[in-house]
């Protein structure tokens, strides 16, 4: 009796020691160089693996921050204090200047966009996508407008207005839930300080855009010619703003013949 108890302890102990030694050896062989910043960030995080940041566990988030792909203030469990520490490690300022907000580069409201057919299916963007990878709108780049992003938004910052998703910048916290929810991946995060954004995604030639949408960017280059800072260029038949050059004057929004450049200026309230 006593013998078998001791035998059990010894056998399990030896087995455990062997596996431990093998694992220790394996961890040397399979050692992966980790960015020292990543290890530091990982230590600051709450460590609950709650997934509130949208990454697979704290390790995943720390890796994304260290690579510069994720904002420093995503750790929900850690809150402000953690965000401050992580920002310090990454050497970025932890203030509103780095805040991101969602933006939907499409202006194809129900009046503006030409329709291919009347859609009567479930009110869900993913379901609508099943009809040839786009909605009932003719434009292949358009916002489908059934509001998967609005359903995903926890902060009441996403609304469907006239069949297009619109962001309420005052409520948006830049969590990116809408970006993940959009099956067409047209929602994107832009810096909040960037006040000007062309609200169109169509990269087809102007004549084709004219056929499918009353307001889409036709690549007329007027904004490119008139921009005082050379910040807006037409690339792939689509006006694109370089936030590092843009002086936020709003001139392009005024002169755009299609009125699709969004300007979130001082008078911005809700759009």
């Amino acid at each position: 009796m006593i013998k078998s108890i001791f035998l059990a302890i010894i056998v399990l102990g030896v087995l455990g020691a062997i596996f431990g030694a093998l694992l220790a050896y394996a961890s040397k062989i399979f050692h992966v160089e980790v960015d020292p910043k990543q290890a530091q960030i990982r230590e600051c995080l709450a460590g609950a693996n709650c997934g509130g940041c949208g990454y697979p566990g704290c390790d995943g988030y720390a890796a994304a921050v260290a690579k510069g792909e994720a904002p420093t203030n995503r750790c929900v469990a850690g809150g402000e204090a953690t965000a401050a520490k992580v920002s310090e490690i990454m050497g970025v300022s932890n203030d509103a200047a780095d805040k991101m907000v969602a933006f939907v580069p499409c202006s194809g409201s129900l009046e503006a966009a030409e329709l291919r057919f009347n859609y009567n299916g479930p009110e869900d963007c993913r379901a609508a996508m099943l009809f040839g990878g786009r909605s009932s709108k003719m434009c292949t780049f358009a916002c489908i407008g059934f509001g998967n992003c609005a359903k995903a938004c926890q902060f009441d910052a996403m609304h469907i207005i006239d069949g297009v998703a619109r962001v309420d910048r005052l409520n948006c916290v830049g969590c990116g839930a809408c970006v993940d929810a959009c099956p067409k991946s047209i929602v994107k995060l832009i810096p909040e300080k960037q006040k000007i954004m062309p609200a169109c995604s169509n990269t087809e030639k102007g004549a084709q855009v004219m056929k499918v949408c009353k307001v889409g960017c036709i690549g007329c280059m007027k904004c490119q010619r008139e921009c005082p800072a050379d910040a807006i260029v037409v690339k792939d038949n689509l006006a694109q703003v370089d936030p590092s050059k843009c002086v936020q004057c709003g001139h392009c929004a005024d002169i755009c013949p299609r009125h699709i450049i969004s300007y979130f200026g001082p008078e911005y309230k809700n759009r």
Partner: protein
Amino acid sequence: MLANILSISLGAILINNFIFSQFLGCCPFLGCSNKVDTAAGMGLAVVFVMGLASAICWVIDNYILIPLNLAFLETLAFILVIAALVQFVEMFLKKSVPSLYSALGIYLPLITTNCAVLGVVLLNVQNNYNFIESVVYGITGGLGFMLAIVLFASVRERTQFSDYPECFEGFPICLVSAALVAMAFMGFSGMKIF
């Protein structure tokens, strides 16, 4: 011998499918079946761990535990093996296939607590399988798990678009569809090969 292996494989994949007829491994089956891609990754990892765990556990059981009259330690020793194995797989994937490692994420360490893996090694002992049979049973059991989770993930992807009463929203519809898929698999039950 070959016939025996064939009967074990078909039995593990279809007739006695781990999820649908033995109700083992239901938690990853429900938790990890939102998308077909994730489900397939999870299935592959389970196939790998089940196969290796069957082999190592058979050796430990037959050359250490049974000669020393310690068969009552089987469960403990097997859990030790599985935990170490999963840890090893995690390190291996992190080094060699970082893309799969990040795709599996938190589900990879969770295989440790997958009862289907412990189930397969304990069933190996219960059925008195020899080494080859054990390994075949482990791998095909994993394949059965993979088949089930991939099938179910594709069903779930579709239920998201379908029109069902609001009270079924979310988990209830998921459980109902799991039951329907399991009933389809009942068509295999009672079959006997050779």
